[in-house]
């Protein structure tokens, strides 16, 4: 096999089928030098990595980009996120459409572990792809696009198409929102089991956008990796507590339809198959939390720190019995604890898909700038996220230890079919 072909293969990324073809031609030994082993040899994880769904593919695998729904919503959570919001500088709807068409093509390719586009052979041009993911496996990368309320202002003549559920979020008690972490015409959520693969995708989308849209904010995040926890137990947040135990089982289509996906009977029809994404950049007052007692911490969450079990119980998934009283007649789980309030009497649910973030330190105070990049999806935030957050913001014991510094509500577009593009039901 000539080196040129080997390079091509290494550059293009090995799919399982490529690897088999290659093995037939030159033997598998050659692959070691081609840097493509990850895709071929990566073992399957011992079990699925999230309680929400079963993960049918290997760690390095491909989550299909095209489909009825966008990937990255009910997709079992990957290990890393790189999320950015854009403001449009383009003034014509045709340019916006072109941007979404280019983004769709690029995202679909990158999802498969390919370069953002075919490289030119002209040595006098900058490379088409930025290159840092060459030879890397797809790593279950997903790209998910959403539109902010400002997308529907007067600029593009789409005001009448603004979805009713895409409201302006009310001011919540304890919000301390910063302009630099809030809003945006478009949001792009990239998740992957590798941070470099995730960054590569967002970077190339930002590059494609130059002259049409500029970045407004970017935040990356992480959770424990599959390698650190092959059993796929519920991840812990930076306060040390298991986070996401009660997430709905969206692997069941009826559950996903009920909680996550906008239906064709919902208004507007063009959002059918889409969802509404909430982003909150929640800074944790890490230093204060670290000096609060175990009792305080457990009462704040309403769960035991080690097991994740509701207070007074032993198993993480044991039922919350919020009306259970102790010997003195006081609730075992404090009424203002995080789980008690977020439970909403079991009637209101959202799909949480949050990641921890760590962004260095606050230069003013020398304290860590770290916390939760809260991301959730719901079918109608007016009935789901907003009432839940209002309740939490008013009373949650956790509020002493957190500040919401960033915020965004986005209409997460329906999926695109091959040949179409993200947003083609709208414009």
């Amino acid at each position, binding site marked *: 096999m000539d080196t040129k072909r080997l390079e091509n293969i290494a550059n293009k990324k090995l799919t399982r089928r490529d690897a088999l073809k290659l093995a037939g031609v030159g033997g598998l030994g050659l692959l070691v030098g081609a840097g493509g082993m990850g895709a071929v040899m990566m073992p399957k994880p011992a079990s699925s990595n999230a309680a929400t769904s079963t993960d049918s593919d290997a760690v390095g695998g491909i989550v299909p980009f095209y489909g009825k729904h966008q990937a990255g919503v009910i997709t079992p959570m990957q290990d890393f996120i790189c999320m950015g919001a854009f403001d449009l500088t383009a003034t014509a709807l045709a340019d916006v459409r072109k941007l979404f068409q280019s983004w769709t093509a690029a995202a679909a390719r990158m999802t498969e572990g390919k370069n953002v586009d075919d490289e030119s052979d002209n040595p*006098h041009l900058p490379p088409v792809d930025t290159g840092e993911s060459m030879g890397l496996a797809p790593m279950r990368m997903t790209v998910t696009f959403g539109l902010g309320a400002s997308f529907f202002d007067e600029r593009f003549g789409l005001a009448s198409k603004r979805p009713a559920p895409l409201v302006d979020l009310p001011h919540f008690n304890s919000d301390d929102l910063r302009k630099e972490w809030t809003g945006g015409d478009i949001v792009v959520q990239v998740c992957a089991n590798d941070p470099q693969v995730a960054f590569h995708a967002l970077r190339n989308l930002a590059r494609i956008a130059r*002259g049409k849209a500029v970045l407004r904010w970017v935040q990356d995040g992480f959770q424990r990796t599959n390698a650190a926890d092959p059993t796929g137990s519920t991840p812990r947040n930076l306060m040390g507590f298991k986070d996401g135990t009660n997430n709905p089982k969206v692997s069941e289509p009826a559950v996903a339809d009920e909680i996550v996906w906008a239906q064709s009977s919902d208004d507007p029809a063009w959002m059918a198959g889409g969802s509404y994404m909430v982003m909150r950049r929640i800074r944790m007052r890490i230093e204060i939390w670290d000096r609060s007692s175990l009792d305080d911490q457990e009462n704040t969450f309403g769960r035991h720190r080690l097991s994740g079990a509701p207070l007074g119980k032993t198993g993480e998934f044991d039922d919350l019995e919020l009306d259970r009283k102790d010997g003195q007649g006081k609730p075992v789980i404090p009424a203002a604890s995080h789980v008690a309030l977020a439970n909403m009497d079991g009637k209101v649910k959202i799909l949480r898909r949050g990641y921890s973030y760590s962004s260095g330190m606050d230069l003013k105070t020398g304290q860590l700038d770290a916390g939760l990049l809260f991301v959730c999806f719901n079918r109608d935030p007016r009935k789901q996220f907003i009432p839940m957050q209002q309740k939490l913001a008013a009373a949650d014991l956790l509020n002493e230890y957190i500040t919401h510094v960033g915020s965004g509500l986005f209409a997460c577009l329906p999926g695109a079919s091959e040949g179409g593009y993200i947003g083609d039901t709208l414009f």
Partner: protein
Amino acid sequence: MSKKWVYPLSAVVLGSSLMLSACGSPETGKTETKPAEQPASNQAAPAAATAAPAASPELQASIDQYQKWVIEQTDQLVKSTEEFTNAVKAGDMEKAKQLYAPSRAYYERIEPIAESLGDFDPWIDAREGDVPDNEWRGYHKLEKALWETKSVADQGKVADQLLQDVKQLRVKVESVEIDVKMLVTGAVELLNEVSTSKVTGEEERYSRTDMYDFAANVEGANEIFKVLKTSVEAKDAALAKEIEDRFKALDQEIAPHRKGDGYVLYNEIKEDQVKKLSQALDALAEPLSKMGTILEG
């Protein structure tokens, strides 16, 4: 700080001795005594590997047109530098301050060419700390005297030297060999300069006249685009239009910062305006970096 200072000292030494052996400058004594250094591979090798093909008649006409423009700019530079250095030598601080930024603009427009000529850039445009203190000379040394130490009493020699360097540059640009590749990369380099040190307000640390340099760099890039435009259009009409549109968009971001014949001081520009300038610049530089498409095959 511009990237030209990043290459190792060996490259500077080699570059200058090559240049000096070619033109017999009075400065030769300084460099000739230095031992031979490693070849400046970071400059020479890529050029050898991807040398531009011989220019078509059309591209040659573009090159000639550009070179003519460079010579005109350098003529103006000599004239404006002479007025500026005369004011310095006359001890007329106010006049010198007024002339400082506009007189530099001619240099900022043709900077990639000056860089290609060896030591001229550090001689004319080094900022304090870019070169050893005892070798520091040029525009920014006078800038510091005018705005920071507020005395030009002992700057006569620096002024004379600057004028001499600029005059020598004028002589050199007559014979500089410009190829299309230089033009294409030069245009992007000018915008990179803006992106690295002008938009961040690091270039003119005492006078705060960064916007003059900003605008001049962009004008220099625009001139290159103008001479290549027909070729770019022939190869990729959409690209040519995109570049043109983004030059206009950037100009719109610059416009609010114009003041009289010049520009506002850097510290009068608000943080979000800096961001807008920077993003408009990136939006232009991205398609501009694709002008190399005219060199294909």
